[in-house]
């Protein structure tokens, strides 16, 4: 991937800012998401909550199913490949997906190496729990970052933890003396030039979204107030009582994330939220995949 392509790929993430990216499993769901105001959809066979329930190995979705979703909507379509599975990524690039999510939601294909994303023309988004993970993924070629959170739980606690941690680490680097950055790069296990960028700009060099466990308009607004530039909602929408209404409410809450009177109104009569599982009740910790 040349530098121009990387800039174009970072640019697409910039266009998604202030928006909500929704998990969908069928063309019908994709149309509901688009009509509700999703800025992109993530095409996958099973949403994280169902992946969790089903157990076993979870892989890239059937390309035919993804193509069906690409034909159903006009907004960008993303899809997930397994961590380290560069052939799944090649397949997704071949069907002209708009963004690949190298995702811990699927079973990792490689327990050491991530995909060398610089070898692709198509953009990648990757999950991160802290600044070190985020900068390592960016060094590998990711043009967008999202918190990992804990997918498929409906519990926002880990997304909050990851966003707070990342931003606290960024603030720390901003306040450092320049001669302390070399050691910080060593501690974070990331290249010096990325630490230097954070020091000078007070932010990641790419767009940073929140993901994992967002289930309500209030959750989405919470993540935005904590510094997210947009929100992924996975199981939270289509595992709820009234997906179209909940999706539209989350979209508006992300735009007006500091207007509590509006968010109060948006939170009324949304029907049942996804039941969710508490972080202490889960056996499979997806956030620990790929570090």
């Amino acid at each position, binding site marked *: 991937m040349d530098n*121009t392509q990387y*800039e*174009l*790929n970072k*640019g*697409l993430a*910039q*266009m*998604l*800012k*202030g*928006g909500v990216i929704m998990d969908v499993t069928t063309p019908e769901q994709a149309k509901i998401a*688009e*009509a*509700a*105001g*999703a*800025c*992109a959809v993530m095409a996958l066979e099973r949403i994280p909550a169902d992946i969790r329930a089903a157990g076993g190995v979870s892989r890239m979705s059937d390309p035919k199913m993804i193509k069906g979703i*690409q034909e159903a909507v*006009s*907004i*960008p*379509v993303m899809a997930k490949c397994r961590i380290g599975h560069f052939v799944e990524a090649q397949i997704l*690039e071949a069907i*002209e*997906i*708009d*963004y690949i999510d190298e995702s811990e939601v699927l079973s990792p294909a490689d327990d050491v190496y991530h995909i060398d994303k610089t070898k692709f*023309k*198509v*953009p990648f988004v990757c999950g991160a729990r802290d600044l070190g993970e985020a900068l390592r993924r960016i060094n590998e070629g990711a043009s967008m970052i999202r918190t990992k959170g804990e997918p498929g739980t409906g519990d926002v606690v880990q997304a909050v933890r990851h966003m707070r941690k990342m931003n606290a680490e960024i603030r720390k680097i901003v306040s450092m003396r320049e001669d302390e950055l070399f050691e910080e790069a060593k501690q974070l296990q990331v290249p010096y030039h990325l630490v230097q960028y954070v020091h000078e700009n007070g932010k990641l060099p790419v767009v940073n979204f929140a993901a994992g466990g967002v289930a309500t308009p209030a959750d989405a607004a919470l993540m935005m107030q904590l510094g997210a530039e947009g929100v992924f909602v996975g199981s939270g929408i289509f595992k709820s009582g009234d997906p179209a209404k909940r999706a*539209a409410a989350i*979209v*508006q809450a*992300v*735009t*007006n994330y500091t*207007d509590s009177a*509006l968010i109060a109104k948006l939170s009324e009569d949304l029907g049942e939220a996804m039941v969710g599982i508490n972080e202490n009740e889960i056996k499979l910790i997806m956030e620990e995949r790929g570090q």
Partner: protein
Amino acid sequence: MRIGILAVQGAFIEHEKILTSLGHECVELRQKSDITNIDGLVLPGGESTVQGKLLRDLDMFDDIKARIDDGIPVLATCAGLILLSEKISNDANTYFATLPVTVKRNAYGRQLGSFEQVADFAGIGPVKMTFIRAPYIEKANDNVNILATIDGNIVATKYKNQIGLAFHPELGDDIRIHQMFCDLM
């Protein structure tokens, strides 16, 4: 000058940074009550379907359309161009429909079709243009000024108070197009 920047979704901060650096005050338009006394309007890139829906859901549409009809200077990029266009050839929806052109959404295909190219921009000269899942204008009325074309397709226009661009001048460090917009105020 006080410039209203539509901030319901998309890359509005990039415009804000450039216009602030040119000495203007920027106000983010996120709901109806934000639309007060503004001298200029920016419709940024993003997803036109999302922006169009939020303009209606948040009851902002009529107020903004009235400002455009009144002749406030408008700079619209990518999704913003779609919001302004009178017709969209591959979509039944239209939004403000104040710019007499027919636009094609996602005219260059998906993200793998996104590109960067230097082309001549009337009154400015060669400009590096960034196209991301971009539209282009298929047809423009005779009274629309065509400012730039690429491979025969129109990518920049001016009509009365409205500048409509298929590309993203807010993504680089070239401020000449923003300056041209500011000169209209």
